């Protein structure tokens, strides 16, 4: 096992990793930008090191500085968290060249799954269903017209190198195809430096359902069930839950075994997530794979009892998985609300000093947060300041528990999305579980 790990991240995920390390008796090194010296991950790590100025590009995304920090502190491994360098195959490769263990999948896996077209090809080979459409770059409008006619409208045009909803265009009729195609290509070029796009069948009112998988370096892969992340605003997840309220045991098994098959096919050796669209008839289609730990991993931890970060560290250290698929048991229901430093209804950022802080407590309530009273939320980084997670026997009870926990949560001095979540928890459609990824665009809170 590792003796010392450097955490190449900040905020709640850095704290999450530090906590896992402390419980594993692994020393921790926090890295931080010069404006982040008061951050909680810096205070709670065993060592800390300033790696650059405020802009992420010069600090948290500065591979050279991070590797250098690992070297001067004798860290054996680097945990990239999520975001920043976590899906940067080149960084993972450099770690390897410098003799530092990158806690994540192999650079080859990251490259393969990071390229949406190759990822689609890969999963198709093991039988995972995908939405009809191309798995290759669509070069011309003529080609696009033909494909759209073949698979039928509506279709969606997506950037090959894209993610998070950027560069996507839905086309409902042939009339608007040409404009949308051109726009998608230029957005892809602007956003990702690569104009390549592909076209697939557009799934109406789908749910976003994803499978957590976990592999080791000995060829074992298991899944930890699904998460439903349909509550999204502009493709940003706001609320996640496990299990998915509409998934039948049969579909769960099928989705899980596809996910495991896809991961095994590429010899995937870390934690990861395979995202699916689920339509109203119980059909599901591969969307993409995230080759890192996700923001919403806690809901899976709550229902399985498995500490995903610890297992991820263990498997990076070469240890075999401690669980077989048959050991995995689901208990109860879990919901996570992402609390952002934003206006709760306009979602405009609200950085600033926290002046009054009291998190909720009691049975079934978990808070993953790196803020504290008088901490200053900085404008340079992500607005996620806390994850409030509840666990209860049933979904109904979990919603009630989330409501009361949100009511207890005090964060003063800045605006947060707590009032938004309070309304969602009282929304009839949400309570009935009748939501899809377009829910927030339709609903009036």
């Amino acid at each position, binding site marked *: 096992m590792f003796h010392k790990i450097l955490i190449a991240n900040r905020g709640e995920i850095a704290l999450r990793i530090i906590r896992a390390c402390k419980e594993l008796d692994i020393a921790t090194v926090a890295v931080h930008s*010069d404006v982040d010296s*008061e951050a909680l991950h810096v205070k709670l790590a*065993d060592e800390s*090191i*300033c790696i*650059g100025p405020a802009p992420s590009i010069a600090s948290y995304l500065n591979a050279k500085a991070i590797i*250098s920090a690992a*070297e*001067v502190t004798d860290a054996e491994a680097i945990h990239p968290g999520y975001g920043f360098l976590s899906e940067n195959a080149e960084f993972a490769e450099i770690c390897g060249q410098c003799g530092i263990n990158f806690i994540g999948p192999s650079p080859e896996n990251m490259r393969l799954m990071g390229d949406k077209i190759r990822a689609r090809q890969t999963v198709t080979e093991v039988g995972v269903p995908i939405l009809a459409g191309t798995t290759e770059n669509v070069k011309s409008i003529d080609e696009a017209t033909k494909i759209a006619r073949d698979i039928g409208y509506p279709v969606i045009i997506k950037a090959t190198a894209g993610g998070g909803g950027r560069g996507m265009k839905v086309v409902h009729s042939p009339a608007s195809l040409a404009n949308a195609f051109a726009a998608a290509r230029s957005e892809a070029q602007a956003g990702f430096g690569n104009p390549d796009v592909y076209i697939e069948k557009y799934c109406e009112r789908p749910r976003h359902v994803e499978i957590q998988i976990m592999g080791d370096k000995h060829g074992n892969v298991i899944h930890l069930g699904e998460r439903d992340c349909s509550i999204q605003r502009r493709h940003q997840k706001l609320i996640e839950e496990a299990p998915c309220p509409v998934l039948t045991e049969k579909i769960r098994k099928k989705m899980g075994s596809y996910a495991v098959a896809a991961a095994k096919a590429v010899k995937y050796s870390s934690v990861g997530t395979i995202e699916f669209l689920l339509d109203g008839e119980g059909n599901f289609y591969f969307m993409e794979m995230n080759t890192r730990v996700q923001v919403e991993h806690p809901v899976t931890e709550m229902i399985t009892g498995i500490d995903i970060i610890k297992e991820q560290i263990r498997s990076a250290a070469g240890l075999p998985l401690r669980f077989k698929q048959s050991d995995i048991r689901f208990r109860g229901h879990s919901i996570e609300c992402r609390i952002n430093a934003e206006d709760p209804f306009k979602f405009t950022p609200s950085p600033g000093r926290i002046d009054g802080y009291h998190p909720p407590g009691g049975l079934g309530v978990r808070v993953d947060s790196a803020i504290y009273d008088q901490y200053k939320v900085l404008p340079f980084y992500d607005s996620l300041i806390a994850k409030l997670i509840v666990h209860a026997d049933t979904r109904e009870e979990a919603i009630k528990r989330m409501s009361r926990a949100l009511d207890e949560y005090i964060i003063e001095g800045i605006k947060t999305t707590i009032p938004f979540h309070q309304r969602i928890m009282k929304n009839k459609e949400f309570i009935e579980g009748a939501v899809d990824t377009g829910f927030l665009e339709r609903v009036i809170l």
Partner: protein
Amino acid sequence: MDIKDLKTLIKLVTDTDITEFEMESEDEKIVIKRGRGQEVVHMAAPPAYAASPQPAQAAAPIENAETPAPTVEDKFETITSPIVGTFYRSPSPDSDPYVESGSVVESGDVLCIVEAMKLMNEIEAEFKCRIIEILKENAEPVEFGEAVFRVERL
């Protein structure tokens, strides 16, 4: 002081991050406090985490890298490391240090090396100065922005 002066004064104070302003006269006493003064609240979470012994050395924040006598510091400046890495005083283990305390260097002279990812980065003086104190030991890690030399600009 008349009301107009007061108005100007209040504006002066509130436009800054001054938290306390005092002024006596007959003849002069001014106290200005700013930032998060000692009386301050921020005692909440952070201070309880005592720095563990190691990082206190290895990772001292910039503002702690101060000289023992801050009163005379005004005339001195610090040169900080532009990158994180390992600080070396000489180009190789068996050669002489680039500079010693008391050395006078010209703008562009190499002061030290900071090694990062096997690359030796030469740190140069940006102005002519006299080295007053070398704040890090040879082969010690340095952080981004950490003071490594105290110098007197010439």
